């Protein structure tokens, strides 16, 4: 029996939906195109989208012809909530947007507040800040390595990565009392001095970390499957990286030597001897190599920071910004007044606005704050690396195969809490 419709056009005229595993497929027919375009909804509840990223993908066969990220599923209104909190209270919210690197978020906020106040943290606090930032970068990179390689089918790196993350969590717990949302770095200094046990644990961690990075590399760097899945995938030309304002490993994986720790140093990063990790492969594999090298460089920085940890206070000696030590409250009326004023009213920042950016595991993590002279922010905005890097997904994925989309999302390393804030 002759069919009147040509092959490949036998689908019903209207949109047709099928419910597959974890995704709804909507089939539409576009006129004037070669072959049918299949519009697939990808996420937000999909194991390989690192959280709740939703993508609407137009497929021609297996080739991606259109891609639209849909975000906002994890929007918690952190910027709005900060306007209702005092300057010193708002620190706890900065922990929570990029939940894989809380101390780095704290640092961006603390530096912004300090810049507007015109104060600088004491040397010991600055080194402790560097230690916490680098530990966080390591833990963020091992989580990235574990989850991204798991999505591409390499199971072992996930186990290895989370083993090291656990050690960083223990270090967090030892120094701040919290494992995840540490709120350790605060305007004026840090929450508390490092305990002797912390320094011992850190020393052991630094000793064993290079060997662990070797282990990850043994599993992946020369692994033919890993290379096939990442090399030449998700190409991002250097000029596109700048045009789309990509940052972090996305920028350095495209051969652009830009690291805020070296190019706009903060917290004394210019005093350490280390190299910026740059690769000019412009693909997912280059971004992987950048992160692996960054882990090794972080260990170098940690060693230098631990060996050169100066003695001294960890908070600025300004009673108008930080409360007096507990023992002073028992003998000094003035200390009680200062404590009372800070606890009931907080401190005010001079009117103005500042922008401070720090390098997180994902890229440029900036904090823009506006003060109207009162004790609460008029506006606090986070320039999050994930938000901007996800914007570049379309550029990265167009024309590639649908299976490569997983590698592209993986190496963009977005934290959805950071995208949606």
């Amino acid at each position, binding site marked *: 029996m002759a069919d009147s419709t040509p092959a490949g056009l036998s689908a019903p005229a209207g949109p047709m939906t099928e419910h597959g595993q974890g995704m709804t497929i909507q089939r539409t027919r576009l006129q004037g195109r070669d072959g049918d375009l299949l519009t697939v909804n990808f996420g937000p509840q999909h194991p390989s989208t690192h959280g709740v990223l939703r993508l609407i993908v137009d497929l021609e066969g297996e080739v991606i012809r259109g891609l639209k990220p849909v975000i906002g599923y994890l929007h918690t209104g952190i910027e709005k909530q900060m*306007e209702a909190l005092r300057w010193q209270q708002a620190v706890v919210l900065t922990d929570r947007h990029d939940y894989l690197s809380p101390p780095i978020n704290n640092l961006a906020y603390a530096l912004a507040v300090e810049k507007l106040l015109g104060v600088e943290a004491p040397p010991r606090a600055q080194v402790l800040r560097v230690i916490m930032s680098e530990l966080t970068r390591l833990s963020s990179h091992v989580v990235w390595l574990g989850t991204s390689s798991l999505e591409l089918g390499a199971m072992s790196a996930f186990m290895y990565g989370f083993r090291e993350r656990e050690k960083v969590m223990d270090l967090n717990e030892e120094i701040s009392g919290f494992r995840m949302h540490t709120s350790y770095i605060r305007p004026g200094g840090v929450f508390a001095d490092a305990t002797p046990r912390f320094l011992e644990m850190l020393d052991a961690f630094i000793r064993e970390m290079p060997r662990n990075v070797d282990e990850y590399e043994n599993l992946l760097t020369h692994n033919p499957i890993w290379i096939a899945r990442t090399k030449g995938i998700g190409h991002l030309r250097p000029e596109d990286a700048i*045009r789309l304002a990509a940052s972090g490993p996305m920028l350095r994986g495209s051969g652009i030597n830009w690291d805020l720790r070296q190019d706009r140093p903060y917290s004394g990063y210019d005093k350490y001897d280390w190299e910026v990790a740059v690769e000019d492969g412009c693909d997912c594999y280059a971004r992987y190599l950048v992160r692996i090298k960054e882990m090794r460089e972080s260990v170098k920085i940690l060693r230098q920071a631990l060996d050169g940890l100066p003695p001294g206070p960890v908070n600025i000696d300004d009673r108008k910004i930080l409360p007096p030590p507990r023992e002073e409250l028992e003998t000094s009326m003035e200390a009680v007044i200062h404590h009372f004023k800070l606890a009931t009213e907080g401190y005010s920042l001079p009117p103005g606005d500042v922008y401070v950016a720090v390098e997180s595991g994902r890229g*440029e993590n900036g904090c823009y704050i506006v003060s109207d002279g009162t004790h609460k922010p008029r506006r606090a905005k986070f320039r999050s690396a994930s938000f*901007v890097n996800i914007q570049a997904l379309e550029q990265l994925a167009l024309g590639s195969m649908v299976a490569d989309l997983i590698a592209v999302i993986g190496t963009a390393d977005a934290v959805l809490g950071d995208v949606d804030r």
Partner: protein
Amino acid sequence: MSQQIPTTAVMAEGLIARDHWIQVQPEQIRATLSRLQAEGFTYFLFLTCVDHLATPLLQQPPQRFELVYQLRDLKQRREIRVRVFLPEERPEIASVQDIFAAANWDERETWDMFGVKFEGHPNLERILMPEDWIGHPLRRDFPVGGEPVDFSEDHETWQTAPPPA
């Protein structure tokens, strides 16, 4: 630096906590940003809005909404902030997403959160809030809290847009 930007456009210039900023007329925003881009400020950091409603500042800002564009020169390692003030009754400005591609989502976010319209933006729709949300949450007159939980009984009668006619 101000000599390199069209001098007629710059209304004010200054340094705040070592950050360099200029203020321009809203009509001049595209010309200013293109000019700055040609001068080497090729890296678009962010665009956001500040709502100065009921500000306690003694020196009142000229208008309610202040748009802030932050640009960076990667080669000379310098940054510049461009300020534009928009009136409360007509918060509208030309889109710059064709000059700086990275501004695309920031403009959508600023529309979503502050209700500032960017003329010439190809896809100016909500990005973080649900599509049927009413109001712009980061405006100072938008209350914190008070909204019911999604999918609860009275959700439909609350902040949901009426169904299209």
